[in-house]
C-alpha cells in the first residue's frame, strides 16, 4: 500500500498534471468567491476538456476545482454576508460581523488556516476510511436520512435567530417552498399558480440569491458607506495573524469539526448543505462562554470552515468506493471517473489504488495551496471592506443577476430573484432569520423523498423505531430543550447573550407583524389546496404547513398581547415604518431593478446590465467620467467574454432585436450586442 501511496503523489507532481491542478485551484477559487457560480459550474465547463487526458491529469483539474470552492466561498460570506456556496451559510453569522467591525482579515486568517486543515483531514480520512465506510453508508437508509435532515433543520432554527419560534416557522416555510412543482411520484403539480415555470419547483440559486444577496447588497447601497463600519485599515497583516493564532489555539475544536465534516459528508444526499450548521451548533453548544456568538466570535468562523472543507473528502468516499454520488458535484466527478475508465468499487482499492491515492494527494495539496494563495491575497481582499460600498454593489449585482439567470435562462428566474429579494428584505428588517428558510428549502426535496420512500417501503411509520432514527430523534428533542432553556436564561438575565441572527439589530415591528400575517395566510392557503390531492402528494406539504400555521398563530397571539398592553403601539410602529428612510430607499432600489428587467426585455442583458451599472454609479454613487465608463465596459466584457463565449448561456431575445440589428454594422458580430 505504501508504494501506491507514493505512486499517487508522483502522479500528482508529474507535469502536466500539476499544471492542471494549479489551473483547477485558480478556477475553483474564482467560482467559490462569486455568489451564484460554485464548483459545479467549473466541473461542467472542464469536463469536456478531460476526455482526452490521462486519468491523473483529469483528476488533478477536476479535484482542484472541487476541493477549493469551500475555501474561497468564505470571502463573500465574510465580506458581504452572502454565502458563496450552500456550505458557507453558517460562516455569515460571525464572519460578517467581524468584517463590519474592521476585522475581515482576522476572519480570513482563521478561516483559511482551518480550511487547509479540514481539507487535509478530509483527504486523510478518505485514505483510511475507504475500506471501512461501507457499513456506515449502508446504515443510512431513507428513514435515517430523513431524521438527520430534521435534526439539521432544528439545529439551524434554534441557532440562527433570536426566536426559536420564528426559526421553526422559517424552516416550515422553506419546506413548503420546496414542494412547489410536480410531486415526486404523481403527475400532479403543486402550488404552480398556473405558471409553467413553477411546474419543476422553484430554482435554488435565484431563491438563495434573492433571500441573501440582494438584501445585503441593498443594505450596503442604502448605508452609503463601506462594508466595515469602523476604520481599521492598518490592521491587515496583524489581524490575519491574530486569526491564524486563534485557529491554532482552537485546535481541538478544529479537529472535532473536521471529523463532523468527514462523517456527515459520507452520508449521500446531505453533504455540504447541513454540515456547516451542525459544526456551528456543536461549537456554540460546547463553548462555556457563547455570549459573543453571532456578534463576531472567531469560533463561529472556525467551526463551519473546518467542517465544510473536510466534507469534500468525506463525500468522495461513497462516490469512489461505491459509485454513489452524494451531490450534483459528486455526480459530475463520478462521470469524470467513468470517462477515464475508472469503475468505482473494489478496483479503486486494489488495481487503481495509486489513482485513489492521487485523489487524496490532490485534495490535500489543493487545500494547502488554496489557503496559501488566499492568505497572501487576504490583505488585499480585506481592504475591500474599506472601499465605498457603491464600488462593490454594481459589480456583485452583475454576478447575482447572471447567477440567477443561469438557473433556467428564463425570465421567471429574474422574477423569482426579485420576489425573494423582497421577501428577504422584509424578513431581514422584521427580525426573521433567513438561514432556516434556505436550509429547509435545500433539504426539502430530499426530506420529502426520504419520508415518502420510508412510508412506502415500510408500509407505515414503523421505521420511526429504527435505532439510528430514535437516536436522532433524541438529538432533536435535546436541541429544542437546549434552545428553550437558553431563551429563558436570556430572558431572566436580560443580557442579550446568544442572539444569533443575520437579521437587522433593530426589528421593524410593522414588517415583523406583516411577515407573520402573510405567512399565516400562505400556510392556511397551502393547507386548503393540499386537501384536494391524494395522500402521498399532500402529505409533505401538510407536514410543513400545519405546524407552520400553528407556530405563526402562537407568535401572533403573543405579539398581539404585547401590543395590547401599550395603547396606540400599532399606529406608532406603522408611522415609524413609513417614515423610515431605509424602507423608502429600498423601494427605490427595487424600482431600479424593475427598470433593469424591463430594459433587458427590450434591449437584451448585454446592454441593459452595463447601463444599470453606469446609472447606479452616476445616481447612487455620484461618480463621474471615465471611472463610470470603464466600470460599465468591464461589466460588459464579463458578460460577453465569460458568460457568452465561455459558459455559452442562453440570453433573452430582446423585443427590439431587429431594429438593433439594423443599426449594427455588418462587420460587428451580433453576439457582442445581444
Amino acid at each position: 500500500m505504501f508504494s501506491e501511496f507514493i505512486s499517487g503523489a508522483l502522479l500528482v507532481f508529474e507535469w502536466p498534471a500539476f499544471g492542471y491542478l494549479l489551473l483547477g485551484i485558480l478556477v475553483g477559487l474564482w467560482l467559490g468567491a462569486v455568489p451564484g457560480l460554485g464548483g459545479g459550474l467549473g466541473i461542467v465547463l472542464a469536463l469536456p476538456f478531460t476526455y482526452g487526458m490521462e486519468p491523473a491529469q483529469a483528476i488533478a483539474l477536476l479535484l482542484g476545482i472541487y476541493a477549493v470552492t469551500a475555501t474561497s466561498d468564505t470571502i463573500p460570506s465574510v465580506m458581504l454576508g452572502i454565502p458563496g456556496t450552500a456550505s458557507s451559510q453558517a460562516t455569515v453569522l460571525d464572519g460578517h460581523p467581524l468584517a463590519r467591525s474592521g476585522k475581515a482579515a482576522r476572519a480570513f486568517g482563521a478561516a483559511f488556516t482551518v480550511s487547509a486543515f479540514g481539507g487535509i483531514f478530509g483527504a486523510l480520512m478518505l485514505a483510511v476510511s475507504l475500506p471501512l465506510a461501507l457499513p456506515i453508508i449502508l446504515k443510512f437508509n431513507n428513514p435515517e436520512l430523513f431524521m438527520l435532515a430534521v435534526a439539521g433543520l432544528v439545529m439551524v432554527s434554534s441557532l440562527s435567530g433570536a426566536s426559536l419560534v420564528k426559526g421553526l416557522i422559517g424552516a416550515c416555510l422553506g419546506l413548503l417552498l420546496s414542494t412547489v412543482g410536480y410531486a415526486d411520484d404523481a403527475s400532479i403539480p403543486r402550488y404552480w399558480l398556473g405558471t409553467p415555470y413553477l411546474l419543476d419547483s422553484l430554482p435554488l440559486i435565484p431563491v438563495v440569491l434573492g433571500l441573501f444577496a440582494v438584501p445585503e447588497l441593498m443594505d450596503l447601497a442604502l448605508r452609503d458607506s463601506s462594508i466595515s463600519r469602523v476604520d481599521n485599515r492598518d490592521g491587515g497583516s496583524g489581524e490575519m495573524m491574530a486569526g491564524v493564532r486563534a485557529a491554532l489555539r482552537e485546535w481541538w475544536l478544529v479537529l472535532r469539526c473536521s471529523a463532523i465534516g468527514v462523517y456527515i459528508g459520507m452520508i449521500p444526499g446531505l453533504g455540504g448543505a447541513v454540515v456547516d450548521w451542525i459544526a456551528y451548533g456543536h461549537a456554540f453548544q460546547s463553548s462555556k462562554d457563547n455570549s459573543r456568538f453571532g456578534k463576531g466570535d472567531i469560533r463561529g468562523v472556525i467551526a463551519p470552515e473546518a467542517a465544510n472543507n473536510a466534507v469534500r473528502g468525506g463525500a468522495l468516499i461513497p462516490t469512489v468506493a461505491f459509485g454513489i454520488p452524494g451531490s450534483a458535484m459528486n455526480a459530475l466527478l463520478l462521470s469524470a471517473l467513468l470517462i477515464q475508465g475508472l469503475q468505482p468499487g473494489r478496483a479503486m482499492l486494489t488495481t487503481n489504488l495509486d489513482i485513489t491515492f492521487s485523489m487524496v494527494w490532490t485534495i490535500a495539496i489543493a487545500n494547502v495551496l488554496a489557503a496559501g494563495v488566499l492568505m497572501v491575497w487576504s490583505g488585499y481582499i480585506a481592504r475591500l471592506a474599506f472601499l465605498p460600498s457603491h464600488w462593490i454593489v454594481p459589480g456583485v449585482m452583475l454576478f447575482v443577476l447572471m447567477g440567477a439567470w443561469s438557473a433556467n435562462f428564463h425570465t421567471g428566474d429574474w422574477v423569482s430573484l426579485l420576489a425573494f429579494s423582497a421577501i428577504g428584505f422584509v424578513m431581514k428588517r422584521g427580525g426573521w432569520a433567513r438561514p432556516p428558510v434556505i436550509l429547509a428549502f435545500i433539504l426539502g426535496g430530499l426530506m420529502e423523498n426520504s419520508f415518502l420512500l420510508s412510508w412506502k417501503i415500510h408500509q407505515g411509520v414503523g421505521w420511526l423505531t429504527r435505532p439510528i432514527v430514535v437516536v436522532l430523534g433524541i438529538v432533536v428533542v435535546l436541541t429544542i430543550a437546549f434552545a428553550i432553556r437558553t431563551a429563558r436564561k436570556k430572558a431572566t438575565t436580560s443580557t442579550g447573550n446568544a442572539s444569533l441572527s443575520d437579521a437587522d439589530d433593530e426589528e421593524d415591528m410593522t414588517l415583523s407583524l406583516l411577515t407573520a400575517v402573510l405567512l399565516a395566510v400562505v400556510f392556511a392557503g397551502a393547507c386548503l389546496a393540499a386537501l384536494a390531492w391524494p395522500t402521498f402528494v399532500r402529505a409533505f406539504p401538510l407536514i410543513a404547513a400545519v405546524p407552520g400555521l400553528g407556530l405563526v398563530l402562537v407568535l401572533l397571539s403573543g405579539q398581539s398581547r404585547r401590543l395590547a398592553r401599550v395603547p396606540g403601539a400599532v399606529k406608532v410602529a406603522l408611522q415609524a415604518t413609513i417614515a423610515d428612510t431605509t424602507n423608502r430607499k429600498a423601494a427605490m432600489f427595487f424600482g431600479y431593478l424593475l427598470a433593469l428587467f424591463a430594459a433587458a426585455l427590450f434591449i437584451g442583458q448585454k446592454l441593459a446590465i452595463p447601463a444599470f451599472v453606469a446609472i447606479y454609479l452616476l445616481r447612487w454613487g455620484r461618480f463621474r467620467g471615465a471611472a463610470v465608463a470603464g466600470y460599465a465596459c468591464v461589466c460588459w466584457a464579463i458578460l460577453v467574454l465569460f458568460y457568452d463565449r465561455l459558459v455559452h448561456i442562453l440570453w433573452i431575445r430582446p423585443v427590439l432585436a431587429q431594429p438593433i440589428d439594423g443599426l449594427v454594422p455588418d462587420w460587428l458580430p451580433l453576439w457582442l450586442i445581444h
Partner: protein
Amino acid sequence: MSIKQKAQFLAVALALAGAATVAQAQDFAGKIITIINSNPPGSGGDLHGRIFAKYFGRHLPGTPEVIVINKTGGSGAAAMNFVYETGTKDGTTLCYCGFDAAAVIAEAPGIRYVPENMDIIGSAVTNLVFAARKDRVPDPASLTDDSALLIGGRGAGSAMGTMGNLGLRVLDANYRYIPGYGGFSKISASMLADEVHAGHAGLSGFLRFFGWDHEDIGAVYYHPVFDAQGAELPRDSASLPETLPSISELHQSLHGVAPSGQWWDAYVWYRSKIMSATIALTTPPGLEPGLVDVLQDAFQKTTSDPEYLAEYRETISEPPTFNSTEMSESLFSGFRDMPAGVAEALQEIVSE
C-alpha cells in the same frame, strides 16, 4: 433581347438567386449550432449529447462549431418547449432530448410542444435491463415467489417504470413497485442497502453503477427491440452477454410457452412505439425541408463515424442502436395510435 426573353432571364436569375439563398442557408460556415440537452450535466444523457456534438459539426456543410447547453426539467419538457417556442429556424438550434410520449399523449401540464410539428433529425433506441439483488433473485423462478419483490423506480407513469412493469406483468412476477426515486443512482444505492430489491435500468446506467461482474447485483433479463411488425429483433451481441436472456426467452423457460396475451401486446406496442426513440434530435417547427435533409444526413453520417463510435465505446459503453431516418420519422408521428387493449393495460400499470 425581347420582353419574353427578358422575362425568362429574370425568372432564371430569380430561381438561381433562390437556390443560392437555400444553399447559403444550408452552409453553416462561421455559425454556432446550439444543442439544447434535456439531461443534467454529468449524466449519461449529457455525455451522449456532448460526444455526439463533438462529431456532428464535422458532417455539416461549413463544419460549424457545435455547443451543448443543458436545460433540465419537466422530464425533458422544459428543453423541448424552449426549442419549440424560441428556437431559431435556421438549423442552429436543436434539441437532444428524452421525448416523453406518454406525457404528450396524456396532455400533461407543462407540455407545450407538439412533436408532429417538429422535424426529427434522428433517434436511437437504448438497451434496457431488469437488475436485481442476487440474494433476492437467485434464479428466475424466484420472480414468482410468494414474497413480493420490492422494485424501486421513478414512478409507474414514467416511461421506464411503465415499460419495466409491463415486463413484470408479462412474466407474472410478484412485485410491489416503490415509486419516487429520482434516478438510477438513488435506486442503486437503495438496492445495495437492501431497501429495495430490484430496478429497471438503461444498459449504460446498469454498467455505470454495477457492471456484469458485480458481487451483489446482477441483470436478470433484457428488453428486446421489435421491428415495425412486432417481431423480436436479434440481440445486440456487442452489448449484451449471450448468457443474459431476453424477456421472451425467460418467459419460455419459466412458463414453458412464448409470451402472449394483453400484457404482451401492450409490452410490444410500448417498446416499439414509445421506447424506441429514447434519445431524439429534433428541430423547432418550420424548418425548410432542404435544411432538414442536410441535418438528417449529418446525423446518419455522425452515428456511423468510426471515430465517434470509438470515443463512445471508450467513454460510455457500446453505442445504442441508431434508427434510420424513416424509422425515426414514423416513431415521431405514429405514437398516438394506441390500440384500445393497450390503453387499458397501460391505465392499469400507471395507476399501480
